[in-house]
């Protein structure tokens, strides 16, 4: 009998090694020093003409169309199949065709940098790619995640045997996504790095080339994704963090049932992302006062956590700042000058060849460190706030009467629809109506 576990292991090994294969490097140009041979011009590398603007507008148009269709398929048509087809299209278009760039997730960084660096011009496309999914989420929930995001799509395709991640673990793991978001903004705002792009797990697949380590990591995520559905979206995606909060406010939300919930429980395990919340029972009266005291204590703890987080974040300014090329270079030069490193790097050699005063480099690095000190305060405070809220929220006793798609966690994939008997009734009546209409035509 075909065993899924065995097959999965095979795929894991094959995909990981497939990544290794793509990592094959190019070979160096020949040494023609003595023969006087001139190497072919590399103008084709340096003179790459920018992509025609019309294609950028086309991207935006496709994005708007995909978002609209996705929202319509999920909320109105309630068709998982349509969402799936759209998802495959988005994977092909935004992933393989547009090679994963530009994407709304990375656009967070462009936006952050443009706020802090006035010399950085933010393109209209980047703004639209950032904002449009947010607007759609405000109205229709996370329909971007469902059928438009190529990163979500590639993970969705490999979901095979999703296991259920307990809600308490899911919530804590999600803390990483908040840290990632804050770090991405900090590094982008300081002009250090676009870490979301640098550590894009799936871009190597879209471009069919990439850094070996990222390929392997991406493969690992896909393998994990067979059993833990969409791990990147749920625990890492920094854009997902923003979408989560916005979709809480969305005007039209995904509902498992097209009608009233009859609590048949048929849908309770249908969501691979653990986004279905169950009806709650009455909270026990015993220990009620104790719980309230705990809640009060946790609320009081919140500012402390914010402060400690800020302090910790700013203390790490030297470590954070190493993400900035100038600081890295200054530290390298410092170590070389102190005799702690005997060999130079390409970067340090290039800097030395400029003959620029090292003191100027040190000054620039010191300024950047100061920026990180301030940014570290903000980042740390934010993480402290999120962690504090994560402690408080489980202590808030909420009442639910139906099986619901949690508006924050629901990725609007539409998988649960068919599990609802009321949905089956709806579909049947639809098809009956269709038959009547066909008869009428005849």
């Amino acid at each position, binding site marked *: 009998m*075909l065993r899924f576990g065995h097959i999965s292991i095979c795929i894991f090994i094959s995909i990981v090694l497939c990544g290794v*294969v*793509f990592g094959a490097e190019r*070979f160096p140009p020949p040494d023609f020093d003595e023969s006087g041979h001139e190497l072919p011009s590399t103008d084709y590398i340096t003179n790459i003409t920018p992509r025609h603007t019309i294609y950028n507008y086309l991207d935006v148009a496709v994005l708007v169309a995909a978002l609209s269709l996705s929202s319509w398929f999920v909320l109105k048509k309630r068709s998982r199949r349509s969402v799936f087809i759209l998802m495959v299209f988005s994977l092909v278009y935004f992933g393989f065709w547009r090679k994963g760039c530009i994407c709304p997730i990375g656009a967070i960084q462009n936006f952050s940098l443009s706020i802090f660096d006035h010399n950085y011009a933010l393109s209209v496309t980047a703004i639209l790619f950032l904002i449009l999914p947010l607007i759609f989420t405000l109205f229709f929930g996370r329909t971007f995640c469902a059928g438009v995001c190529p990163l979500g799509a590639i993970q969705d395709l490999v979901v095979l045997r999703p296991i259920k991640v307990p809600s308490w673990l899911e919530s804590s793991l999600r*803390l990483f996504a908040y840290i990632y978001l804050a770090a991405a903004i900090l590094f982008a705002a300081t002009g250090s790095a676009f870490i979301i792009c640098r550590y894009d797990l799936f871009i190597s697949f879209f471009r069919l080339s990439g850094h070996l380590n990222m390929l392997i990591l991406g493969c690992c995520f896909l393998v994990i994704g067979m059993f833990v559905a969409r791990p990147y979206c749920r625990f890492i995606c920094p854009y997902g963090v923003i979408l989560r909060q916005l979709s809480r406010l969305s005007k039209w939300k995904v509902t498992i049932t097209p009608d009233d919930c009859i609590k048949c429980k048929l849908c309770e395990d249908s969501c691979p992302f653990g986004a279905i919340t169950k009806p709650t029972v009455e909270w026990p009266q015993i220990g009620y006062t104790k719980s309230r005291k705990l809640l009060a204590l946790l609320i009081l703890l919140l500012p402390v956590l914010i402060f400690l987080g800020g302090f910790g974040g700013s203390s*790490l300014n030297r470590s954070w700042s190493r993400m900035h090329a100038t600081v890295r270079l200054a530290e390298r030069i410092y170590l070389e000058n102190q005799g702690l490193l005997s060999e130079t790097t390409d970067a340090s*050699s290039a800097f030395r060849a400029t003959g620029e005063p090292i003191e100027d480099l040190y000054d620039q690095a010191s300024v950047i460190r100061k920026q990180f000190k301030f940014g570290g305060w903000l980042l740390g405070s934010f993480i402290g706030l999120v962690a504090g809220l994560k402690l408080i929220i489980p202590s808030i006793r909420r009442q639910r009467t139906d099986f619901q798609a949690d508006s924050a966690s629901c990725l609007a994939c539409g998988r649960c629809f068919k599990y609802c008997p009321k949905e089956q009734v709806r579909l049947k009546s639809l098809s009956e109506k269709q038959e009547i209409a066909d008869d009428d035509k005849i």
Partner: protein
Amino acid sequence: MTTKYDNQNSDKSMKASWYEAAKGGAVVAGVFSVIILGLLVLNYLQKELLDPVRAERLENLKVTLIEQPKNEQLINTIRELDLQLRKDKIRRLQFSQKGGLLLLGAVGVFLIGIKSAKAFKAKLPHPTAVTDQQARQIRQAILARWVTVASLAVLVLAVLFFINTPPIDFAGAVSSYLSDEEIAKNWASFRGPQGSGISAYTNIPTKWDGKSGESIIWKTAVPLPGHNSPVVWGDRVFLTGANKQKRQVYCFDAISGKLLWQADMINPASAADKTLDMYEDTGYAASTVATDGRRVCAIFPTGDVGCFDFEGKKLWSRNLGTPDSMYGYASSLAMYQNLLLIQYDQATADDNKSKMIALDTFSGATVWETKRPVPGSWTSPIVIKIGGQSQLITCAEPWVIAYNPSNGVELWRVECLGTDVAPSPIYAGGLIFGIHSYNSLVAIKPTGQGDVTKTHIAWKAADNIPDICSPVSNGKLIFLLESYGKLTCYNVSDGTKLWEEDLKTSFTSSPSLVGDRLYLLSEKGIMSIAKVGSEYTEVAKSSLGEKCYASPAFSDGRIYIRGVENLYCIGDKN
């Protein structure tokens, strides 16, 4: 007539056959993926394991080619191996690209198959009854809090870990270059600090005998010949030696005299210069090395320049192109901060080939290059400090030119020199002294901008002007030593000749000053030591018993002298 039951049955059997088809497809795609994968892994391993071995073999062959540039068989082997390597690389690259695509496709088919199989055997939901929903809710809330606390603990640990990384404080890093005190304490380049030939120590021995071994702390044979002078930093002494085939840098232990390491200066680009014939008096290693206390840099007449760390590891090397020098390249190196300063004078002024080059000592990268309107010269540049501002002073026909050593921008120049300049400039008593061989000693005020010939020459003297040896001065008196032995003393302030003495022997080594004593090392290896004063007063004479052409180096209580075959360390043996 078909019943509903029959319809359901046929539906079921169709689903089962679709399930089998999907399963079969998945298995075939899976097996296919594994086969491609195996081939790709093999391809990858070949690239990772086989290619580096062959590439190393190719590099070794290329190095051998430097030794045997006319070996046709070797050249053909290199060509064939190089071609084979390139062909294989292209083939592997194409194979991995196509194979990778195929593998992705196969994995895609596998996924479709397996997902379809799953869809055709979809399980019906099995709602479970939870016995104690209340307890479950409370348990989940508690767990959620504890996991958050655990995550916070991990974060705190991460913060503590990163905080502990050793800090680099740029505020205290501005003085990372050698201080003037460090430079003054050592003998880091030709003729020591500022190229002055003045010892920072006065406890230098005056009496020794090479034959009996009196006051000879150690004597070590130098593998290859060279006229360059020893350079001393701490407990290390550096020299170079070369012949037509080899160019080497040596490091001796100043305590024991042991040759700690010797390093070959190999540059594939200089292979063609193996045939370079040098003027005998200059030899293949006339230029003295320079050190900054962490690395030592050397240059050879082939244009090979390189830097080694104190353990003998080559940090970088370059070939600057063989200098077109009539008597062979002989300028010594100077250092300023992180810069290795090379006076690369050659050919004629009209050839426009002469230049001053500053290389970064860490990487060998060219930091600046300044063209010089001069022909070949045999002087060495010096770096001096005047009023907190450093100047790089150079001499070549007809100019004494000062540059800003950090960027190579010319500061001032004076037209006062003639052909074949060999004595290096010195700075003493607020004046720069340049020597027009056999013709004149010129004292220059080192200020102003541009051509200051008309305004900045303080005085000129014309008696007993040397052709090889550089002068030495204590700031009040300046001493000139002609190569055939005439020692002349001038007053620094006005250029009045005070006295002269014929030492009746020949000199190539430049005179040195230790406190109030002049050290004059003749070609015969006899050191005449005279008191600095209003007349020549010899206080001691010591013989090495070996010919000497290089200038001595001084450190605390010791003097290092390079004979034609040996390096000597002289001092108190106790």
